[in-house]
């Protein structure tokens, strides 16, 4: 009788333990994105922060994803009120400078923020190597299934979302992904 009870208790407990183990290993704030592998949503946004040197664009210029076909695109959503964006900022600019002259375009997209606050933030952070665009009413952000900042999307030369990075982007991870996308686009 005791063995029977123990077996029943075990049968009830095992699925509960498995469920807890699965649940505790998940990040409840992480929303699985259906976008990687799919065509990147088109965008057409105006530059408010020009960037530096050969990577710069004029303020007011429109950055269109359609014009960047054939290039690897790094689209980074950020905001001046976002603390985690400070952690990745210098690294992102560094990586952008390293790929100058290669078919890679970095674009920052301001999320739920004003261009003036964004410009001040860039000045405080010591500049930004690549241009940033303004996304009024967060339409592009929603098109990319954004739920927080920073989030970075790596778009392959054929216009597909290859990877999505949630949280601060690590420079070494970025380099690895960009290199693999460049070699994939160079392959016949």
């Amino acid at each position: 009788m005791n063995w029977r009870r123990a077996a029943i208790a075990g049968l009830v407990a095992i699925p509960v333990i498995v469920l807890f183990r699965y649940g505790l290993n998940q990040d409840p704030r992480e929303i699985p994105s259906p976008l990687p592998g799919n065509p990147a949503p088109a965008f057409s946004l105006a530059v408010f922060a020009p960037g530096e040197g050969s990577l710069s664009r004029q303020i007011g210029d429109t950055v269109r994803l359609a014009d960047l076909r054939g290039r690897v695109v790094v689209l980074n959503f950020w905001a001046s009120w976002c603390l985690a964006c400070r952690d990745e900022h210098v690294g992102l600019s560094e990586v952008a400078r390293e790929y100058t002259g290669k078919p890679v375009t970095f674009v920052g997209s301001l999320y739920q923020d004003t261009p003036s606050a964004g410009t001040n933030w860039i000045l405080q952070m010591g500049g930004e190597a690549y241009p940033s665009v303004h996304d009024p009413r967060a339409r592009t952000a929603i098109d990319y299934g954004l739920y927080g900042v920073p989030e970075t999307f790596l778009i392959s030369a054929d216009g597909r979302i290859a990877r999505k990075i949630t949280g601060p982007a690590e420079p070494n991870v970025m380099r690895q992904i960009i290199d693999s996308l460049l070699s994939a686009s160079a392959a016949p």
Partner: protein
Amino acid sequence: MTLLLRVAVTTALLIGASLPAQDTSSRAPIGFDTARHGPADSALEARTSAVASQLRCPVCQGLSIQDSPSDLAQSMRSLVRDQLASGRTPDQVKAYFVSKYGEWILLEPKPSGFNLLAYAVPLVVVLGGGAAIVLAVRRWTTSPEPSSAD
């Protein structure tokens, strides 16, 4: 003591009667100015609310974009309104958000495939629990057989 209780109840009733009745069902959505918009707009707002209340706010805990005051929820609600105004059906608007955020964005998962578990498991648990209780009560209420020693 009884007198005090009567006075308290009467006062509460009088205060309640003096307050204007609030009909929450006809309340305009947040940010909607009924004085500035016509009946067509209010119909669009009602449809927007209906769709927005089925979509989960990505930056909240268990709130719909209709109920959340967050900036992202407001932007999403305005996008729902614009898509409905441009002629998309509520199902097409929901499909758009699912294509961006996955099925996670729906507060109520579709009753198909793996999602069926979410509907079936509570039913199985309730039925199983009920059956277990009935069996246990029967066992407890059945009078024990007289032992052979008696």
